[in-house]
């Protein structure tokens, strides 16, 4: 199994703040890698740095064999990375259809793929011609997912998809992610909800203070309460 994404000694500064302090991370092809950590550990900054939305001030980011840390964001996206940001960032003034038309860069949307998305997220079909700004939070997240899935991507970066959503919606998102995984997608997923991470993740990287302080199999971390407590401050009683 080859590594699709590799971060080596990546540093990121935002203004005068030094956020990432030499991140080392690998994301193997066809697997789902969870990026966990406390608030402010640098998870979102890591995803944004991969996307080129923050510029890496040092280090190397490779997508396959290609170095991407110096590329502009549109070129990184065109290299095959789909991004679902923490804020969802749907275009409120555009309809659901128009949001997906823009996401389908290569041309017309594939109807079979669209039907597959509708299967997981029926509200998107129902509100196809409604402005995205009128959707609920969960439906906006569905649209944000759909934008990333409307075309095949080499790698999906997904930032805290379950944040603030109702359990029923989270269930739909998890079902969708499992299916995407089953189809062989490579995913790097930031998640605060340990239960969700445990259900979806194959591998895990735990961040603290701008560094990856632990890497390994998700199952190992899930099985080791002491390690969870040490890395994440979790108590199994409350989080499992």
């Amino acid at each position, binding site marked *: 199994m080859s590594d699709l994404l590799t971060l080596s000694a990546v540093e990121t500064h935002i203004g005068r703040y030094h956020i990432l302090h030499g991140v080392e991370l690998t994301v193997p092809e066809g697997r789902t890698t969870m990026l966990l950590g406390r608030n402010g550990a640098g998870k979102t900054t890591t995803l944004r740095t991969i*996307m080129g*939305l923050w510029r890496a001030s040092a280090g190397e980011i490779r997508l396959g064999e290609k170095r991407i840390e110096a590329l*502009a*964001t*549109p070129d990184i*996206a*065109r290299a095959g990375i789909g*991004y679902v*940001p923490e804020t969802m*960032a749907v*275009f*409120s*003034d*555009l*309809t659901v259809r*128009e949001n997906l*038309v*823009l*996401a389908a*860069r290569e041309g017309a949307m594939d109807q079979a793929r669209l039907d597959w998305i509708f299967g*997981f*997220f*029926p*509200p998107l079909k*129902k*509100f196809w*011609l*409604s*402005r995205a700004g*009128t*959707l*609920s939070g*969960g*439906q906006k997240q*569905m649209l944000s997912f759909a*934008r990333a899935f409307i075309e095949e991507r080499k790698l999906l970066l997904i930032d805290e998809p379950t944040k603030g959503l*109702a*359990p*029923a*919606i*989270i*269930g*739909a998102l*998890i*079902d969708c992610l499992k299916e995407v995984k089953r189809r062989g997608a490579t995913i790097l997923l930031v998640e605060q909800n340990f239960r969700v991470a445990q259900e979806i993740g194959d591998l895990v990287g735990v961040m603290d203070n701008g560094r990856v302080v632990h890497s390994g199999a998700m199952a190992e971390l899930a099985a080791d309460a002491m390690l969870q407590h040490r890395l994440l401050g979790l108590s199994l009683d409350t989080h499992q």
Partner: protein
Amino acid sequence: MSAQDSATDASAALPKARRDFLPLLLPVALGLAALPFIPSSSTWVTLTIAGLAMGMMIFIMASGLTLIFGLMDVLNFGHGAFIAIGAYLATLVLLPLGGWMQADSIWLNLAAVVPAVIVAMAGTAVLGLAFERVVIAPVYGQHLKQILITMGGMIVAEQILYALFGPQQIPLPLPTSLRGSFQIGEAAIEKYRVVCVVAGLVVFLSMLAILNRTRIGLLIRAGVENTEMVEALGYRITRLFVGVFMAGSALAGLGGVMWGLYREQVNAAMGGELLVLVFIVVIIGGLGSVTGCFIGALLVALATNYAGFLVPKLALVTDIALMVAVLLWRPRGLYPVTSR
């Protein structure tokens, strides 16, 4: 019940997209409100058509600025320079063609006016490209510097026009076929004002069609909301910025030509004078909104015309009062697109 079913059920309560028609009624309401105070209906018709024509010209000048403002977050005080430069470029084409302009043939008139408009729009578009690359690009995201440098650009452009053409007004007569008026009842409606209304509507409808029916339009609308996400979807927003800036400058140039012909003269200060109106229109309409800009332009022009007739001393403050009233009602303008 599955998670998907729950999601569907939850969405059943989703409100349908609400169309906000209220601002569209404002120009009509303003016109009707002015009617009882104006002594004759023919005067009201003349004032209203004059207001609509003026509104369309201001809309053409302001529509580019609202997109630049909304999409690029750029406060371009240099926009007025493109208005004046457009008018001067057209004058340079039209002066040697004075014979065609004064001929009775509409075809000879068009043979003079159409190239003048093309030269004005193409020239201001090219200057817009240079202005964006040289002046604006280094100060993206820095509002104070944008204000200073674009205002400086405006002053420099104005002084260059003074140096090249002198401080005097340069006559720009209307072509013969656009002179005179139509008589409808007792109301006299100038032909050129009708042309302005038609031209404004064509520009407005074309912009709506482009923004709503093309991928470029979708990208502009999406970019006004969230430039970062447009880039994350793989689109080079910089190219879009340049294209919109060029189109906005070309529209300013077109507006300058129309305004010059309306006043039948051009001068170097005209851009600066119109810029205040243009900014008021953009703010009233809501940053980034073409429809808001259209309604705002009509409101400002109608209010100016009615007030100029009824209370001439108040005409100068009418636009500011209108802007204050709209912002008290809708603090982000009539149809805000961007939250900036």
